[in-house]
């Protein structure tokens, strides 16, 4: 337990000040390094993955509803083409057809 009694202070590197100066100068112009450090953090990577998953989920959930209206529109377009209806006529005929239905 007393083996550290009388131990002398360890001597540091005589070029410590030069090294500190070099580090201070490097840190002054290393905004890109700081940005890279933030980007390479695991938290950032996990957050990005979660964001991508959430965006995919949102697109998937929203994508179901417009798909149905699209098919309806497509059916109308096919019908209009089949009977060579112009866009203005098409609206009229479809409107008439809709009116005739009980």
């Amino acid at each position, binding site marked *: 337990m007393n*083996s*550290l009694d009388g*131990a002398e*202070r*360890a001597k540091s*590197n005589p070029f410590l000040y030069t090294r*500190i100066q070099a580090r201070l100068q490097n840190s002054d112009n290393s905004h890109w390094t700081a940005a890279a450090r933030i980007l390479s953090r695991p938290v950032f990577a996990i957050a990005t993955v979660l964001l991508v998953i959430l965006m995919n989920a949102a697109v998937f959930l929203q994508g179901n509803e417009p798909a149905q209206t699209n098919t309806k529109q497509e059916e109308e377009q096919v019908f209009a083409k089949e009977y060579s209806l112009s866009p203005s006529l098409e609206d009229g005929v479809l409107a008439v057809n809709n009116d005739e239905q009980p």
Partner: protein
Amino acid sequence: MLEQELVDRLKNGDESAFKYVVETWQDMVYNTALGIVQNNEDAEDVAQEAFIQAHESIDQFKGDSKFSTWLYRITVSKALDHLRKKKRKKRFAFLQSLFGTNEEEVRHTPDFNHPGVSLENKERAAILFEAIEKLPENQRVAFTLHKLEGLSYQEVAEIMETSLSSIESLMHRAKNNLKKNLSEYYQKIEK
């Protein structure tokens, strides 16, 4: 140079004052860091980081304590941060080794030899350093500052921003833990 004058010059960005600070306290900072991290290269890194931190946050120094006390606090905090980072790396390396992807092995140096310890005490000091490594952080810091830096309990209390009685109890527990660890070590050897 008076301490107040030195601090004023540092706050004004005087580089010669900063050079004076490094040259005056570099051994103190390095020795403290070495006692805590127990590795020469790591201690130099910690010493550099401590001086850079002091350079960048000199405006936060209010003069409530001595400049050297403030520098000790920064060094201790940086050394403990370094140890925590190293522990995290070790845990991550262990996880990587489970999946067989560990390329860089984080090694622990069991036979740390402090350069200031006399030759006849080298072997016993290396065993003591191993036991110190197992102490809780605050006991480790208090013991290192008292034994390696030769600071009084009062000075250790100022650095650790606690009361004298807390340091006394911390040192008492540290010594008891060390005795326990060392007796276990010698019992293992005898077997």
